[in-house]
C-alpha cells in the first residue's frame, strides 16, 4: 500500500511540476511581456469597473445613513454623521445569526457531501465508461442538465413536504443531487487523464477499489475538488428560488430568503435594509477577496479542459 501512496504522491508532484511549467508558459507572456503597456485598454477597464464598484459603494453608503439623510439626497452622498446603528438593528430584525447559521450549514453540508459523492460516482463512471451500464448512467445524469428547474419545482415541493425534507437537511440533499450532473462532467474528464497504471500498482499491492479511490485517486483530484467546491459553495450560498419554494419553517430561512421577507415587511426602511443586505453579502465577499486568485483559477479550470 505504501508503494501506491508513494507513487501517488510522486505523480502528484510530477503533475504539479508539469502544471507549474505550463503555468509559467501561459503566464510567461505576461511577466516578460515585451508589449508596451496599453493605456487605452487600462483606461477602458478602469472606467468600466465603476459599474461594478458604484453599486457596492451605494450599498455601503446607504447603510450608514439616517432615513432623513437618505431622503434629502440622491443616496450617493457620504453621510455626516455616520449612523452605525443600522447594523445592530438589521441584525435583530432579520434574525441575522440564525439566517447566517442556516446558510452556512447548508453551504458547508452541500460542499462536503458533493465532494464526497460526486467524485466517487465520477470515478466509477470514468473507469467503466466503455461498459453500457455506466455509459447509460453517465448520459442519464447528463441529460438532466437540459431540464429546467421550473419543471420539477411544483412536484418537488409536494415531495419534500411529504418526506419531511422541507428543511436544511433537505436543502443539502437537493444541492448534492442536483449538482451531480455538472460535477460528474468536471470530474470524469479529469479522472480519465490520470494514468491507470497508477491504480494497477496499488491493486497489485492488494488494495480494494475503494481503497484505490481513497488513497490514490482522491488526493489527485484536489484541483477539481477546488473547482467543484467553489461552484457548489457559491450556488448554495446565493441560491434563492430553491430555498424559497422548499423551506417552509421561518426558522430555516437562508440569507437571501431573509432579505426577501425583510424587503416585504419593511418596504421603505432602506437604511436598515441596506445594512442587512451588506451583512448578507459580506461573508462570501470577504472570503473571495482573500482567495481571489485561487477562486478564479478554480472556476477557469472547470471551464476549459
Amino acid at each position, binding site marked *: 500500500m505504501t508503494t501506491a501512496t508513494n507513487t501517488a504522491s510522486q505523480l502528484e508532484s510530477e503533475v504539479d511540476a508539469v502544471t507549474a511549467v505550463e503555468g509559467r508558459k501561459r503566464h510567461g507572456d505576461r511577466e516578460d511581456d515585451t508589449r508596451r503597456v496599453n493605456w487605452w*485598454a487600462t483606461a477602458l477597464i478602469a472606467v468600466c469597473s465603476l459599474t*461594478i464598484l458604484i453599486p457596492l459603494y451605494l450599498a455601503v453608503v446607504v447603510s450608514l445613513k439616517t432615513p432623513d439623510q437618505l431622503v434629502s439626497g440622491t443616496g450617493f452622498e457620504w453621510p455626516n454623521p455616520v449612523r452605525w446603528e443600522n447594523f445592530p438593528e438589521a441584525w435583530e430584525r432579520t434574525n441575522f445569526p440564525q439566517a447566517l447559521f442556516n446558510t452556512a450549514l447548508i453551504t458547508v453540508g452541500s460542499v462536503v457531501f458533493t465532494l464526497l459523492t460526486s467524485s466517487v460516482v465520477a470515478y466509477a463512471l470514468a473507469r467503466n465508461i*466503455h461498459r453500457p451500464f455506466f455509459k447509460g448512467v453517465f448520459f442519464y445524469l447528463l441529460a438532466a442538465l437540459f431540464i429546467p428547474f421550473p419543471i420539477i419545482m411544483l412536484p418537488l415541493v409536494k415531495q419534500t413536504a411529504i418526506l419531511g425534507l422541507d428543511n436544511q437537511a433537505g436543502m443539502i440533499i437537493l444541492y448534492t443531487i442536483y449538482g451531480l450532473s455538472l460535477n460528474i462532467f468536471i470530474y470524469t474528464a479529469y479522472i480519465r487523464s490520470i494514468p491507470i497504471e497508477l491504480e494497477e500498482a496499488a491493486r497489485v499491492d492488494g488494495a480494494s477499489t475503494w481503497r484505490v479511490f481513497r488513497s490514490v485517486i482522491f488526493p489527485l483530484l484536489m484541483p477539481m475538488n477546488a473547482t467543484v467546491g467553489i461552484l457548489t459553495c457559491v450556488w448554495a*450560498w446565493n441560491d434563492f428560488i430553491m430555498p424559497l419554494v422548499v423551506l417552509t419553517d421561518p426558522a430555516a430561512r437562508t440569507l437571501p430568503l431573509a*432579505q426577501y421577507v425583510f424587503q416585504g415587511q419593511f418596504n421603505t426602511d432602506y437604511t436598515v435594509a441596506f445594512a442587512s443586505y451588506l451583512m448578507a453579502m459580506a461573508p462570501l465577499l470577504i472570503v473571495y477577496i482573500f482567495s481571489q486568485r485561487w477562486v478564479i483559477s478554480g472556476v477557469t479550470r*472547470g471551464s476549459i479542459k
Partner: protein
Amino acid sequence: MTTLTEAVRTSASGGTTRGRATRTRTGARRALPAYYWMVWPAVIAFAAFHTVPVLVGIFFSFTNYAGYGDWNFVGLSNYANLFKDDRVLAAYGFSFLFAIAATILTNAISLVIALALNAKIKARSFWRGVYFVPYVLAILVIGYVFQFFFSNSLPKLLSGIPLFRDNILTNPDWAWTAIVALAVWQACAFTIIIYLSGLQTIPAELYEAASLDGAKPWRQFTSITFPLISAFFTINVVLSLKGFLQVFDPIVALTNGGPGTSTESVTLLIFRGGFSGGEFAYQTANAVIFFIVITVVSLFQFRVLQRREADF
C-alpha cells in the same frame, strides 16, 4: 455552467480512445462489484429527487389538480388552453425578449472586457478580480440595491429625462430594460472569465506573424482571435440564453413582475400560478412546454453556431 465546454471537447476527441485502452487492459467483461456500489446509490437518489418529480409533473399536467383536493384527468386541455392564454403568451414573449437582449449584451460586453483584460494593462489581476466580484453576490440581494438605485437615486440624478425621472421600474414599456441591466451586470462576471481563459489559449506568435504581415488590430480580431475562441463563444451564447430564459431572481428583486404583469417571466408565472394561484396542473403543463422550448432552442443554437464554427 462549465460542462458544455467539456462536452464539446470530449465528444470531439479523446474520450473513446482512453475507454478502448482501458478495456484491452482490464479485459474483464463485467465491472468489479465495487464500481456498481459506487454508482447505484447516486442513480437511485437522482431518480428519486429529479426524475420522479419530472414524471409526476408530466403526469399531473394531464389532470386538473389545483395543488390540493381532488383531481380528474382532463387529457390535453391544459396544453390547449396554454396556447389561448394571453398571460402565458405574454410571459413567453417577455422571456424571449429579455433573454435575447441580455444574451447579446452579456456576450458583447464580456468579449470587449475580456479583450481589454487580455491586453497588457496595469494591475491586471486586480482588475480581473474586480470584474469577477458580481459572481459571488446573491443576485437577489444586489438586485435590491439596484432597485433602490432605479427608483430613488436615478430619478434625482437624471431628473431631466422623463423616463428615469418617473422611475423606470414603474414604466410598463421600459421596466424590462432595468432587469436586463441587472442580469447582464451579474452574468458578465462569469462570461468574462470564460472568454479570458479562451483568449489565453491563443499563442502570441500568431499575432506577431499577423502584424508582420501588416494586419490591423480589427483584422487580427476577425481573422485570429474570434475564430480561435469561437468554441467559447458558442458555449457562452448557449448557456447565457438558456439561463436568461429561466430568469427569476432579478425580476423578484426589481419589479416582481410588474407593473401589472408586464415583466412576468415564464418561471415567475409558473411559480405564482402553481403555488398561490391554484393552477398546479396547468402550470406543470406550462413547465413541460417550457422544457421543450428550452431544449429545442439550445439544440438549434448548437447546430447553427457549431456549423459556423467549423468554417474556419
